[in-house]
């Protein structure tokens, strides 16, 4: 089972370390993690996606809640929340025709195309992890030179 956890923490040094350490020490998985300061700079919001049984996820939520630095821990309902991830792919594109094809493909997924180094293209896609995966599969034949993802953030 996949779960999205939204964690409001005090914006202090060392808290990311403590949260990730908790996952390691308790034998939980982190699928992705993203952190950013909130509108009130006293707090940061961490979004963690994780995989586990229902019992494990309930235990993760409780252990996170027990941490003194966490203010609020929520398990987000996939259907009732917006969850997105930004992915960047650097794609091989030596010929004009490839470039047009990639641009078309990007359009259908709502990805933006930037010029990359050495004639490559960089596709920028903000979407759900599933759709990013499908997009990745469809551009694979062109040759993916590099990629980076932010991890899911959600509200």
């Amino acid at each position, binding site marked *: 089972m996949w779960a999205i956890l939204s964690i409001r923490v005090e914006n202090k040094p060392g808290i990311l*370390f403590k949260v990730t350490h908790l996952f390691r020490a308790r034998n939980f998985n982190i699928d992705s993690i993203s952190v950013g300061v909130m509108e009130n700079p006293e707090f940061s919001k961490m979004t963690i996606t994780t995989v586990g049984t229902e*019992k494990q996820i*309930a235990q993760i939520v*409780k252990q996170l809640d*027990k941490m*003194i630095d966490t203010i609020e821990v929520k398990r987000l309902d996939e259907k009732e929340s917006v969850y997105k991830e930004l992915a960047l792919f650097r794609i091989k594109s030596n010929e004009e025709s490839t470039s047009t094809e990639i641009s078309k493909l990007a359009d259908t997924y709502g990805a933006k195309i930037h010029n990359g180094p050495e004639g490559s293209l960089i596709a920028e896609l903000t979407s759900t992890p599933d759709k990013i995966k499908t997009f990745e599969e469809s551009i694979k034949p062109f040759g993916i030179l590099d990629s980076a993802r932010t991890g899911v953030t959600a509200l």
Partner: protein
Amino acid sequence: MNDKMEIMNGGKALMKALEKEGVKEVFGLPGGANLPMYDELFKSNIRHILVRHEQSAAHMADGFGRVSRKPGVCFATSGPGATNLLTGIATAQADSAPMVAVTGQVPVNMIGRDAFQESDIIGMSNPSVKYAFQPRTVEEIPEVVKKGFYIAETGRPGPVLLDIPKDVQQNEAEVTFPDEVRMPGYHPWTDVDMVNIERAVDLLLSSEKPIILAGGGTIISSAFAELQSIAEMLMIPVVTTFKGKGAFPENHPLSLGPIGMHGHAEANKIMTEVDCVLAIGTRFSDRSVGTFEEFERNLKIIHMDVDPAEIGKNQTAQVAVVGDVKASLRVMLKLLTKKALKKSDGNNWLKHVNEVKDYWRENLKLHPGEMSAAKILRKLREVLPKESIVTTEVGQHQMWASLFFDAIHPGTFFSSTGLGTMGWGFPAAIGAKVARPDVAVVDIAGDGSFNMTENSLATSVLEDIPVIVFLINNYSLGMVAQWQRTFYDRRMIGIDLKKCPDYVKLAESYGAQGIRAQSLDELGKAVKAGLNSDVATVIDIPIDPEEDVLPFVAPGTSLKDMILPS
């Protein structure tokens, strides 16, 4: 609310803040990075108790904390001083003991530069503390001390680390001492959960074969009277976890003693028959319940605990009551009183329980020798006043203490049950004696464990903190030897301690009293001599090195698979 501002250095701010928390003693050892705080300790009214190894300082603070229910305080320098504390800190965390550990750190501008005696103790200790602070300015010190004590002693208690850079101890600043602190992410107290307590009562009353399982949380929250009243009102038998030993008088007719790997035979037998358990302040450790899946089969669990994360961690509860167990039990007692319930002591379940109990108390085969574990521990119980405090080391002697030494007075039995730290018992006994100088304190020890912190004899003698070390001596690492005999076809390795040292001479060399007891009569006299002594007494009690601890629930098996003496 605040006191007026005062100018002082960080070390003085620390001492003042500790004094405001009521600290009268600290256990520690000075070094380069905590000299400034020691200089202020010199000028303060706080007593310093010098140890010979920082691990012992942490165990002393732990013992002090468990007995007084106020955080014990230990001091160590940076680097190796701090890392030596770690085992003691982890021990306190595993057993939910309140502690405040204060370490020196290299100056702020040296942190991260691999300075002499620098260690990232904040990072290293992270999974083993309830919380850790590293104040970077003098002004923060009063607040982190206040927060540290509050965190250490409230909710589920635990160790807090204050890591103070040397320059922060030295620098002067204007400081104020807060009366209250705010921590938006820390909510140790919850309201009493009325709804679930009512559900718990219904479930308990509708069950046919109920039992109460009292864990360490019962002792931490001093819920002794409530537990006893409920057990007596409903005539429900009581078992404990090993950590819960001493939550319920073990000479009480309803007591079956501890369950678990080395639980009482009758307790383990009955535990496999019950249909409902009222579990109070326990995490259902594997050492207590065996395999998790087997334990909860056919069993309805009512789980009371102050820590919500314990609910459902190891066992699935039908009813969960989160909150201070004393407060919850008090409400439960009121509800039961309102129902004017009085179960007769003639009910069939209790009759059966008593038959099983009587059978095992009469028929459990014991080691035949005069100085068997059972006989020497029963002798100790006979001679020792009931309100005396007992600690143990870790190993065979510890499990024999669980089996054969009855804890009668509430909250008088303490052991390193979670982390299982050899060397804990003796320094913890010294800490306990500092907390309760009015009662006798005995460390039930094994020779292997006592070796690890025996240099605390210097602290005991020189600081005038007399305790008794009841040294059950098989000159081997007995529990390991037992496992090698049982599971490794007697391939004995690394267990023979070769009659070294001579514990009577060892005790005497520290200025303590050393007595060798080779008969029960000598043993009784030795304990009495220890009770009357002004210095520590080490009673060396040689036993048969082949004696096993039985019954035994092998790891990875269930209580019903208990191995009995043949």
